[in-house]
């Protein structure tokens, strides 16, 4: 198949169709509008259902209903909209309903800006919703990777019966890159015998619920969820390593920031300074193992984010005091340039 030039948001939308999505519910918000606009146009032709909801609260609850009824449902939004969806996320996780949620992050807090940001890391990995739950979060760095992750996301959601985040941002969503679509690898999916579809008079009624007033029942349910999360953590944590061999400092960055960090690493290499990158491709589960196998040459970790420092917490937990962990970030919608990251590295090495 040949490559086509596509906007990140549109590639995600097309990948959702190719990934077997059946229902989309969403509410307009910049910078993700190309996703619902593409789907409003293209989804019905492919037999899918597109519906604009009255709010993000409604959208996530429509996703909940559609998933409970056996649909492969998704929504997409951006930071303030994701904030409104947190009640629904907690319910989706508790009811173990498969679905996909795109967050094209923008500057915050509050209404913030419509420029790219990564300040929703806590929101997506720590949960803004109530209770002990986790959401599998896939973090692409290119339009191509976004499309591939999106095509996988619906199957992952069904295999683990969990909501899945596609972690994007205003930059990844708006940029145009060549993208190629391959057939989605066929995976064996569990039978959905828990859906509400009408009992047909042939079985006892199914109930999709999260209320568990008996504490022993709820604790047991939580332990079952935790066991599932442990399985996901073992099997699904992913990362990319870039020029880590012989690196004096290893940088850690995800998504669009990781691309800029790669440019900074190449700049530094030209000056004979060896630095590398560990790029988490899943934010939860965090690729802890990647930080256990650091080369002997590495003296320090530098986390770079478009935030005031959020993922750096997970990096510190993964490094567990073995090395110093520094942080460099820009926020409010400002995109760091490779030169300023390179300068930060040189300062840390005392070679500025």
């Amino acid at each position: 198949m040949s490559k086509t030039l596509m906007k990140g948001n549109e590639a995600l939308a097309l990948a959702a169709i190719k990934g077997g999505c059946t229902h989309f519910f969403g509410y307009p918000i910049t910078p993700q509008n190309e996703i619902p606009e593409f789907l409003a146009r293209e989804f019905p032709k492919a037999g899918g259902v597109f519906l604009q909801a009255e709010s993000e609260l409604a959208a996530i609850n429509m996703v909940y209903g559609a998933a409970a009824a056996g649909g492969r449902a998704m929504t997409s939004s951006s930071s303030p909209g994701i904030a409104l969806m947190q009640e629904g996320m907690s319910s989706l996780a508790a009811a173990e309903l498969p679905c996909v949620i795109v967050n094209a992050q923008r500057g915050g807090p509050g209404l913030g800006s419509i420029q790219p940001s990564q300040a929703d890391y806590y929101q997506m990995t720590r949960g803004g919703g109530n209770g002990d739950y986790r959401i599998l979060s896939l973090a692409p760095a290119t339009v191509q990777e976004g499309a591939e992750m999106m095509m996988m996301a619906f199957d992952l959601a069904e295999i683990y019966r969990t909501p899945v985040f596609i972690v994007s941002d205003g930059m990844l969503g708006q940029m145009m890159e060549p993208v190629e679509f391959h057939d989605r690898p066929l995976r064996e999916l569990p039978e959905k015998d828990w859906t509400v579809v009408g009992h047909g008079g042939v079985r006892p009624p199914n109930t999709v619920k999260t209320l568990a007033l008996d504490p022993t029942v709820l604790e047991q349910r939580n332990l079952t969820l935790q066991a599932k999360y442990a399985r996901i953590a073992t099997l699904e944590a992913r990362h990319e390593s870039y020029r880590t061999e012989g690196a004096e400092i290893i940088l850690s960055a995800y998504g669009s920031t990781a691309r800029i960090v790669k440019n900074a690493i190449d700049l530094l290499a030209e000056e004979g300074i060896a630095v590398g990158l560990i790029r988490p491709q899943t934010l939860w589960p965090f690729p802890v193992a990647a930080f256990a196998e650091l080369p002997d040459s590495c003296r320090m970790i530098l986390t770079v984010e478009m935030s005031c420092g959020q993922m750096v917490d997970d990096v510190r937990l993964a490094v567990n005091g073995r090395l110093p962990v520094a942080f460099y970030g820009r926020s409010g919608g400002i995109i760091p340039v490779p030169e300023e990251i390179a300068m930060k590295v040189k300062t840390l090495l005392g070679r500025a």
Partner: protein
Amino acid sequence: MTVVHARSKGLTDRETHYCPGCTHGIVHRLVAEVLVEEGLLNEAIGCAAVGCSILSYNYLNVDMVESAHGRAPAVATGVKRVHPNKPVFTYQGDGDLASIGTAEIVHVAHRGEKITTIFVNNAIYGMTGGQMAPTTLPGQKVTTAPDGRDPAHAGLPLRVAEMIAQVPGAAYVERVSVHNPAAVRKAKKAIRNGFLCQMAGHGFSLIEVLSTCPTGWGLSPIESLKWLEDNMIPYYPLGVLRAPEEA
């Protein structure tokens, strides 16, 4: 021995947790009977809402999904868009539907979703212990308006059926009561009309059922029925507010 009256197949064998004299149980039975009589029981999908009726899935013999507080109409929309030909309903209280869920109920009607909402209005928050609802009557004493609802402070009660009836996508809207046998028969007819309207594809249907909450009201079951008749019906007049035009 001849069986004169049997438990509806639309109900499970479980004993309900409702207080003595609470009319939620009557409304459950009416929904169950209508689903059985119209041949809809096997295909029906219900959306339970936060409130005393959240456990309705333990009593109604249909597949059901529990919804977060106020969101049942959005959940039902998701269900219906996956199964456009199956009967889908929500069962909601007045705190759920008329307070926290006002946006969802207006927009489910606005889109003309082919869904039936059973709206149980007992003029109070039952489950949380008798706080003020948007439907609480002027002067009615509730735990968060201990001297009675003061309209100058808290406004006048919301008439939901009237409000929804003027949304273009609403096809059938009726307010009924269950305070005596004649009213119960009318309520059942209304619930039937709601489901028939849905299955005929006319649009959204809402049946507001005036209901008692003896515990929250601090009255006996009998006094509650009388209080409903004397106080609620004058403010919330019964009747059909919207119906599809006859062909």
